[in-house]
């Protein structure tokens, strides 16, 4: 991910203009390859996490939401996604484009200044593009048609993910250049979590609740698998965040450290909150705390120090816990709390990081600003980035939902919902083991 700790470092990402090809750094490449694999691991991790939370009859269909994104966006990204995100400004900067990146064909010999083949950067970035739409699926779990879902994520990737990614991480993206040293989004607070969270909320509202919600209890079919999935997500997130440094050194180490600490702090706080509120700490609560901590530190992992990570992780759990209580009060059906966790913690992280920035960063930013640069200045930039992302994601998602509903349709029939996704859409049953045969 375009690392944003300081502008000069960013230049590492650009292949030099002149003929002199930068040298490959086998160590950095090794870590970035590993990070790519780790982020890929998050896809089955997410499938397991979400899959375990739905009812038995929807387990495969829900896992397929994550997996299918690997296939659809996996191809789309190679064809044009990378070109849209990391090409030069087009249409007034709304999107990027570089014809040379079509089918990744211009990358075959390219080495970035960071010392890694551009292919690796493209694949690493591609994993983010894959997982983000998959996150949304949790908001309308158990009630969408598969074809409609595929169309939805395709459009969403093109119209929401690619533009926002371009704004935030491309060197000529306008959020990347906002303020003294850019809006800070180390590994995807805005690009990934806010877009997914907000779009999920909009989709949940537009599609309406599951049949029977909230009266009927909808028991998780396999919390055990949800725990496994959360474990894989935690592990994969190390690639997600520490890989976003596009290096294998101090910046990477810092990102890894605060990621680990924020996750632990988030989990710990959620357990505490539940213990106070219900006298019981649930395992799902634990996982939610882990996720809240991981999400909140995602935009911040490049600039925050360990004590800040503890505070942010704890704050994220508190706020997300509250957000979910509020959802229950309001009664809309964001089934797996995509907004409650990713949206809320993503916004919190993007804003709250302003108060925990490493002093060195602020000094450099002040220099770049040609004088002073205060926490409040940066907070303003962050707030602008958040606001723009929220508004844009919401509006365009609404449009896409409209389109999808007019074409393939998105909402599953009531009968289909009662029978379950697995049988109706995929012709399968998740657990043969529960029935004799």
């Amino acid at each position: 991910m375009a690392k944003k700790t300081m502008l000069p470092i960013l230049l590492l990402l650009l292949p030099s203009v002149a003929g002199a090809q930068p040298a490959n750094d086998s160590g950095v490449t090794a870590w970035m390859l590993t990070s790519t694999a780790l982020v890929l691991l998050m896809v089955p991790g997410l499938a397991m996490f979400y899959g375990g939370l739905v009812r038995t009859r929807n387990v495969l269909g829900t896992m397929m939401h994550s997996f299918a994104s690997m296939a659809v966006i996996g191809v789309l990204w190679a064809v044009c996604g990378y070109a849209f995100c990391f090409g030069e400004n087009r249409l007034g900067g709304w999107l990027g484009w570089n014809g040379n990146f079509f089918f990744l064909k211009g990358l075959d010999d390219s080495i970035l200044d960071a010392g890694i083949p551009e292919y690796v950067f493209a694949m690493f970035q591609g994993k983010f593009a894959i997982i983000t739409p998959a996150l949304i699926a949790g908001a309308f779990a158990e009630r969408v048609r598969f074809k409609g879902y595929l169309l939805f994520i395709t459009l969403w990737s093109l119209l929401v993910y690619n533009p926002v990614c371009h704004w935030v991480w491309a060197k000529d993206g306008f959020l990347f250049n906002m303020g003294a040293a850019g809006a800070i989004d180390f590994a995807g607070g805005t690009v990934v979590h806010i877009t997914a969270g907000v779009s999920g909320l909009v989709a949940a509202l537009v599609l309406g609740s599951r049949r029977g919600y909230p009266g009927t209890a909808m028991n998780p079919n396999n919390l055990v698998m949800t725990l496994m999935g959360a474990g894989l997500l935690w592990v994969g997130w190390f690639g997600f965040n520490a890989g976003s440094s596009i290096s294998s050194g101090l910046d990477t180490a810092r990102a890894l450290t605060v990621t680990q600490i924020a996750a632990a702090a988030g989990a710990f706080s959620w357990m505490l909150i539940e213990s106070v509120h219900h006298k019981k700490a649930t395992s799902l609560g634990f996982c939610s705390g882990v996720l809240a901590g991981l999400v909140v530190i995602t935009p911040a992992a490049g600039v925050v120090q360990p004590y800040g990570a503890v505070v942010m992780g704890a704050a994220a759990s508190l706020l997300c816990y509250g957000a979910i209580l509020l959802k229950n009060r309001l009664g809309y059906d964001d089934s797996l709390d995509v907004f409650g966790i990713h949206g809320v913690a993503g916004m919190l992280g993007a804003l709250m990081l302003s108060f925990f920035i490493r002093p060195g960063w602020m000094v450099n930013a002040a220099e770049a600003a040609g004088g002073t640069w205060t926490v409040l200045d940066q907070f303003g930039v962050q707030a602008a980035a958040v606001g723009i992302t929220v508004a844009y994601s919401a509006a365009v998602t609404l449009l896409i939902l409209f389109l999808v509903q007019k074409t393939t349709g998105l909402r599953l029939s009531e009968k289909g919902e009662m029978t379950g996704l697995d049988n109706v859409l995929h012709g399968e049953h998740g657990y043969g083991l529960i029935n004799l045969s």
Partner: protein
Amino acid sequence: MKLITAIIQPDKLDEVRESLIAAEITRITVSRCTGHGQYSDEDLYRGQKVVPNLMPKVRIDIACNDAFVDITVGAILKAARHNSGQGGDGKIFITHLEECIRIRTSERGGKAI
């Protein structure tokens, strides 16, 4: 008192329950079973349609007083049928229940149902 046992298609459980509740039959016991009657549902396995020999079913047991038997059976019949009836829709079995005891209070007979 009678013990009514219905074997229905899994996708009809929600509807049957709602139909029963509408008929004010709220106390039921359900369990998973697998059955062989007429073929109906089919799964896909790597491009091949597979007709399972034993198919997932749901079993509902309801103990009720004699006066409620018809209501209960009616409620099930109405809700468990796919369209106007299709193979695999299931069966209802009725046996005589000699005694019913509520564990909480040790009450017996009709009032314990």
